[in-house]
């Protein structure tokens, strides 16, 4: 872990509000992105991200400085999201609105369309699979880090990520998002 981050954490533990602000500013986008992918709604994602940082700042003294900070932070974010999802299961929330596409260029629209479809498909993947998938692909964490963050064996994480991929592939195929194969061979 970089020394700079260690010092920042130390200042936060001393009650330095500026340091706390810097810490939140540094990781807010990653945490918020994960929360948004997990929850699918901006308001819920922001609530979960806020709760995550509040918990992190409150229990910063419990963090083992030998461990990486980001996996610990994202693990807390994932837990908050799963808690919110559990609450939502009991109390169904209104469907999230799909934001309008501002750009009319065909390539951009196609790319954006694909990203939106992946985003939508992700919402139908099981929570733990989704979290593991996002931590691996979006936050580029290693399997070992994800396993530590989610407190489960490395092999289990691998399986979850593979299952998430397969589930996404299945959904994208069903929705007709997947294009025709690129490897159009001439010698079939």
């Amino acid at each position, binding site marked *: 872990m970089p020394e700079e981050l260690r010092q920042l954490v130390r200042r936060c533990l001393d009650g330095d509000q500026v340091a706390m602000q810097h810490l*939140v500013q540094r990781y807010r986008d990653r945490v918020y992105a994960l929360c948004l992918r997990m929850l699918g709604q901006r308001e819920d994602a922001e609530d979960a991200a806020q709760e995550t940082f509040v918990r992190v700042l409150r229990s910063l003294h419990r963090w083992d400085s030998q461990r990486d900070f980001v996996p610990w932070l994202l693990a807390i974010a994932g837990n908050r999201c799963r808690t919110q999802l559990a609450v939502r299961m009991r109390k169904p929330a209104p469907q999230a609105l799909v934001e309008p596409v501002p750009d009319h260029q065909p390539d951009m629209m196609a790319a954006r369309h694909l990203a939106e479809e992946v985003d939508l498909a992700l919402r139908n993947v099981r929570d733990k699979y989704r979290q593991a998938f996002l931590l691996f692909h*979006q936050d580029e964490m290693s399997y070992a880090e994800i396993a530590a963050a989610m407190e489960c064996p490395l092999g289990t994480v691998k399986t979850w990520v593979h299952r998430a991929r397969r589930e996404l592939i299945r959904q994208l195929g069903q929705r007709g998002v997947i294009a025709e194969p690129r490897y159009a061979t001439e*010698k079939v």
Partner: protein
Amino acid sequence: MQLKKFEQRINDLLDQRIPLDSDPTLRDCAEENRQCRQLLARYEELQEGVQLLDRPTPRAGFEDRVLGQLPGTRRRRAVHRRYVLVALTLAGSVLLSITALNSNIWDAGNQQNSLATGHQALDGGVADETMRSDVRPHSPGVPSGGTHADVVGRPSPQVPAENIDEESQPLTPDRVASIDSYLAVLASIENVASGFQLQPDQPPEAEQGTRSEWIDSVTGGFKPLAVSMNGVLRALRDTLPAINEETPDLQPQAAGAGTGGAAVPA
């Protein structure tokens, strides 16, 4: 290669973050088998889609909202609010006390002036200057051995002003009267200081002055408030527009310019 093994290989490459099109085995299988081809294309699309996922940012002020939820910050804000409240209360109390004291002393001074005028009218004139100077504290004519009660109990016949020399004369009945007024001022200040102590229902026998004096002594503590309230009400009456049908232009009510209701005295 079986389709299942083909998919496993794709996953292995993705796990190691190796681009799929860089593996010749996969390419060869995809070229030969339609299902493998489709599967590889779907994984590539998925990978592309994941990379295209945007990195959304929360609304502005996110950090402040987080810090606002921390208990320490909340407590500090609450303490700050409490300090401000206490400071405002203290300032208000001090202001009220000062106003009360000023008004009380002013009222007592007026009372003395009116008494002096009354004495002047009755006795052929007692000098105002003498009366005013006698109201001052530490008047040199007060005997050091006598108590206030002794002094107050004596009768107070009036003496013309020209016969009085406050610096050299011994205690005389008119000086006793002025000491009496001085004590009245003191008593009214004590009333304010001691939180407006309750007064007896009837004038005590020792104070057989006029009834108005007794009422003044009883209500002396409340006068400052009444004076202040009167001032505020008068100011409001002067400035607020009249809200009725006869004055639709909402002009401030001037003296004598109205409906006969709330004309402000000049």
